[in-house]
């Protein structure tokens, strides 16, 4: 039932994650943050098996930090996604694979371009202008197909996200309680209200 969404714009990436922590038929929490800042310009959204998600996300975050300390430069969004994909692909053929789906969103300061990577638990990495994970993808991707352009402004992106959330509220059987929205651009990662 978890939902992750990412949209790239002209010079930013907008990411949305639902905030419900669910186990079986019980909603445990309504303000769960399913994202982690990997460095100043890269954010990772995760969904899947609750234990695996936090463990894997923190593992990636610390390795990305370690690289930064060792080499004195930030890992680019693409390098982060490639590394993360490899970790998941290796894990897939281990005794107990991580069941984690990810969106990696970032702003590449070297080329001044926004990036969005869709990674699933099998270790499939797709570079996309907009992406979604979970059942929500079946409702929102068609909206994004219609309204997304590569050069949209932040306000336009916010309007599209509103449309997506509205659709989920009317057509999705489960009432997702809240959404955490983050923007990543040249100034870094910040949370915004939608």
């Amino acid at each position, binding site marked *: 039932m978890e939902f992750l969404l990412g949209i790239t714009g002209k010079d930013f990436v907008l990411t949305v994650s639902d905030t419900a922590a669910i186990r079986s038929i019980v909603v445990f929490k309504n303000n769960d943050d399913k994202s982690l800042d990997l460095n100043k310009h890269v954010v990772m959204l995760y969904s899947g098996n609750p234990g695996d998600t936090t463990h894997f996300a923190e593992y990636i975050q610390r390795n990305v930090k370690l690289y930064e300390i060792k080499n004195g430069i930030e890992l680019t969004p693409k390098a982060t996604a490639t590394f993360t994909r490899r970790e998941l692909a290796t894990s897939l053929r281990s005794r107990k694979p991580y069941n984690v789906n990810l969106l990696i969103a970032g702003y590449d300061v070297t080329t001044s371009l926004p990036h969005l990577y869709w990674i699933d638990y099998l*270790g499939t*990495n797709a*570079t*996309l202008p907009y992406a979604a994970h979970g059942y929500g993808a079946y409702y929102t991707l068609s909206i994004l197909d219609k309204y997304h352009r590569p050069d949209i402004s932040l306000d336009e992106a916010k309007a599209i996200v509103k449309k997506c959330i509205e659709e989920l509220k009317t057509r999705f059987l489960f009432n997702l309680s809240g959404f955490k929205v983050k923007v990543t651009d040249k100034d870094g990662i910040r949370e915004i209200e939608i």
Partner: protein
Amino acid sequence: MSITQYNGGTILAMAGKNCVVIGSDKRLGVQNLTVSTEFQKIFPVTEKCYIGLPGLASDVQTLSELFRLKVNMYKLREEREIEPLTLANMISSTLYGRRFGPYFCEPIVAGLDKNNKPHIYGMDLIGCLNFPDDFTVAGCAEEALFGMCESLWEPDLEPDDLFETASQALLSAADRNSMVGWGAVIHTITPDRVITRTLKTRMVIYYISYI
């Protein structure tokens, strides 16, 4: 459904007179849901040799990285480019190395050797090599491609005719398979250059204008 068909995608290669073509569709899906329409399944190895990797997308990416490493190491050690037959055997033994826990991918190798003789090779997911001298196909629309190639292919085609033959075969197969399509890419490999063309398959009109 088999795990090799989970992400969709299909590849074909054809041999002509001193030329070969290798082509694939561009779709990446999760069963019925299309995730990407720009997914790379064909990878250049040398200037005159390409590999196509249809199958589980995760393994497609893992293998493309592994083969890139192995080919680069070969080039450094031998101080020459790898030949298509050597490459096919390298891929075959890499796959057989995972005999009892295979990569879910059925690679196709297409290229010209140092004498510009065309080579195409196909193999199954544990590396059993095939040495056809006409065409080879793999992936989700394999059956349809076999039918199309069987009726369209003829010996000693020139590069442009070979491209047309391969394109028509791939488009016809892709347009009737829901796991395959969303555009196609065809590389025509000739002794002096490689021509890469992208094709449109049956797809939503406004989406085409967007791309």
